[in-house]
């Protein structure tokens, strides 16, 4: 049986073994600090990845990443339903276990949205502050990319790995986009284009999301392995119940074990890194006489300003082969709309390499077989194209995470309640994105057969903003160094500290902030 007893001595207790926590843990352990990592979920065996591939492809096979049930109960009471358990994974590696792996830097405007445009808020740091940490983060994640994006912020060095070459369908899109004055460029991917980090190059399973059986896609398990090699302890199935504290210091993280016991892990510092929803829940569950509205919540902002990225897309078919579903990742995108003011919310366009049905999945769900199935598969495969995109949400205090006291999880704790809506600026930006996406497909003579617009949009599963960073303790939860204003030894890692979220997939920024946090915390220790 695994030893889940607390360590006698720890400099740092990291709560959550996703990328935000694992990077902090690895870097601090490698410096020589005593680190304990607690994660609510299990450690997933690398040898079981093909079983998870089966579970993804074959209806009736259980066992993707185990989300759901009493442990993960939640409520969704906003005007838009939020499918929280599809949006996260609990376990060693966190949501990088099921992520797609797109890793781009935020643009400079993202840090200065209020100053430039009078909306949202400014970050207390700017792109120049984070720039060296972005370079570190790209090395940490082994990013494959090319310096070919005319809209990207300035960078100082090449990507660690060469970019994946454009797809056949990218070449089709490039023709249309050139006519429309929309330059397309490569996608930075946290995926090995050549062997790296002890893992092989991508071998093209085509199932990156939700599982990469080859290990070529980065998951935070790499940093967990590094942390453990440097002496850190990583305890799985150890959900933290509350943070015990005095007025201004955390004394211990109290966690449960599968055996039903409760332990206290004391540490000089605690790093909260369990995502934009559970970070909030843990702070609210740790309310006390000294912190009656929740730990580190004197601002009243813990849980507020929840943001995600909204999907916008248009798909259709053309009269020539498009060669989709060979790989499960994208190789080209377009940031041409991102820094403009029409629309003001950021919009990132993505040219999908997996438009339309994958034949094997369609076959396993079909109500036919034999020659007629083959005929159906041939009719439905081969000529699909789609332009997707992410659209920014500005921070809105009414979009928030709270506790739902009417329901409890498997430990009797109130469950998180996600209040999520899509504001008018975002709706308008989705419509504008749809116009551009449709124009691209029209240019190709495509027959459009689906549109995801403002009424159909859904979240991209990027949980941001709920413990926002700022210089003013009355208007933010953590300071510019990611340390809580109200608690001397509490640090928060991950996208919950983002004051604004732009429209870029957040994990590279999460990683950059974790590199920076580790430096600051090392100095503090």
């Amino acid at each position, binding site marked *: 049986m695994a030893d889940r007893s607390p360590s006698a001595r720890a400099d740092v207790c990291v709560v959550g073994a996703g990328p935000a926590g694992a990077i902090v843990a690895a870097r601090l352990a490698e410096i020589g600090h005593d680190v304990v990592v607690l994660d609510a979920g299990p450690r997933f065996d690398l040898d079981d990845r093909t079983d998870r591939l089966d579970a993804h492809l074959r209806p009736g096979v259980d066992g993707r990443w185990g989300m759901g049930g009493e442990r993960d109960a939640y409520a969704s009471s906003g005007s838009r339903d939020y499918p929280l358990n599809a949006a996260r994974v609990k376990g060693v590696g966190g949501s990088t276990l099921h992520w797609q792996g797109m890793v781009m830097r935020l643009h400079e405007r993202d840090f200065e949205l209020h100053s430039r445009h009078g909306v949202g808020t400014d970050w207390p740091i700017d792109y120049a502050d984070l720039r060296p940490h972005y370079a570190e983060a790209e090395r940490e994640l082994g990013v494959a990319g090319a310096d070919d994006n005319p809209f990207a912020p300035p960078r100082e060095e090449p990507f660690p790995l060469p970019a994946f070459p454009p797809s056949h369908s990218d070449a089709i899109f490039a023709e249309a986009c050139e006519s429309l004055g929309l330059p397309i460029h490569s996608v930075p991917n946290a995926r090995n284009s050549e062997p790296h980090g002890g893992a092989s190059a991508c071998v093209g*399973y085509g199932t990156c999301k939700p599982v990469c059986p080859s290990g070529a896609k980065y998951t935070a398990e790499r940093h967990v392995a590094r942390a453990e090699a440097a002496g850190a302890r990583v305890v799985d199935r150890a959900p933290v119940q509350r943070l015990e504290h005095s007025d201004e210091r955390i004394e211990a993280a109290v966690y449960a074990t599968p055996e039903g016991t409760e332990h206290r892990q004391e540490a000089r510092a605690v790093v909260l890194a369990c995502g934009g929803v559970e970070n909030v829940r843990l702070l609210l569950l740790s309310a006390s006489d000294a912190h009656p509205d929740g730990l580190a919540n004197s601002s009243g902002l813990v849980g507020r300003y929840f943001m995600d990225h909204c999907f916008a897309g248009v798909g259709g078919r053309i009269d020539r082969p498009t060669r989709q579903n060979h790989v499960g990742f994208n190789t080209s995108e377009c940031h041409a709309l991102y820094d403009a003011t029409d629309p003001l919310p950021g919009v990132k366009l993505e040219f999908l390499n997996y438009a339309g049905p994958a034949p*094997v999945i369609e076959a396993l769900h079909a109500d036919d077989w034999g020659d007629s199935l083959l005929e159906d598969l041939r009719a439905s*495969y*081969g000529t699909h194209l789609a332009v997707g995109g992410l659209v920014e949400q500005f921070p809105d205090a009414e979009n928030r995470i709270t506790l739902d006291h009417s329901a409890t999880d498997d430990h009797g704790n109130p469950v998180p309640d996600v209040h999520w809506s899509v504001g008018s600026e975002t709706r308008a930006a989705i419509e504008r994105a749809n116009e551009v996406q449709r124009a691209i497909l029209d240019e190709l003579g495509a027959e459009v057969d689906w549109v995801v617009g403002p009424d159909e949009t859904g979240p991209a599963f990027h949980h941001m903003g709920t413990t926002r960073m700022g210089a003013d303790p009355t208007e933010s939860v953590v300071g510019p160094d990611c340390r809580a204003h109200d608690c001397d030894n509490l640090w928060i890692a991950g996208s919950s500290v983002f004051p604004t979220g732009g429209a870029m997939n957040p994990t590279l920024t999460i990683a950059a902030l974790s590199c920076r946090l580790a430096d600051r915390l090392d100095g503090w220790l």
Partner: protein
Amino acid sequence: MDLSRRDALAALAAAGIAGAAGATLLDDADPDPDLTTLVAVAETVYPSAADGVEPFVETYAAGLPDDRRDDVLDVATELDATARDWFDAPLADLDRATRDRLLRELGVDAADPDPDGNLSDRVRFFLVNELLYAFYASPTGGRLVGIENPTGYPGGTESYRRARMEDDG
């Protein structure tokens, strides 16, 4: 379109299975009757253009992990018993149209694939979908549709760049 033992090994590789287990199945002079039933199902659910179904299915089944293969062959036994009950003949002795009718009258075409469900659900899960998975997640099956690196098959990162499917060579 000729299926081969090599295709079966590719399908096993796609499923993350090394393909060494159960090799004794192939050594028997007299084929396992359940395996014969499985081949008969494959001949029904695969396109008629597929040749070499028998060695493909035998190699695939032989390569499955023991417990997975046992489940598959147990359900094949049950299906064969149904054929004997309905048609007074083993499934393998029925013509393709009759096998097809048997499966459809059992409701297998509309069944939810469920390893713990009723016979129709289990036939869908353990026989029809196992066989379709082996076929359409393999390059040979994928090629019939137009994709030589189908989803679930580790076919590398060259094919997505090509304008057309490479020749079989």
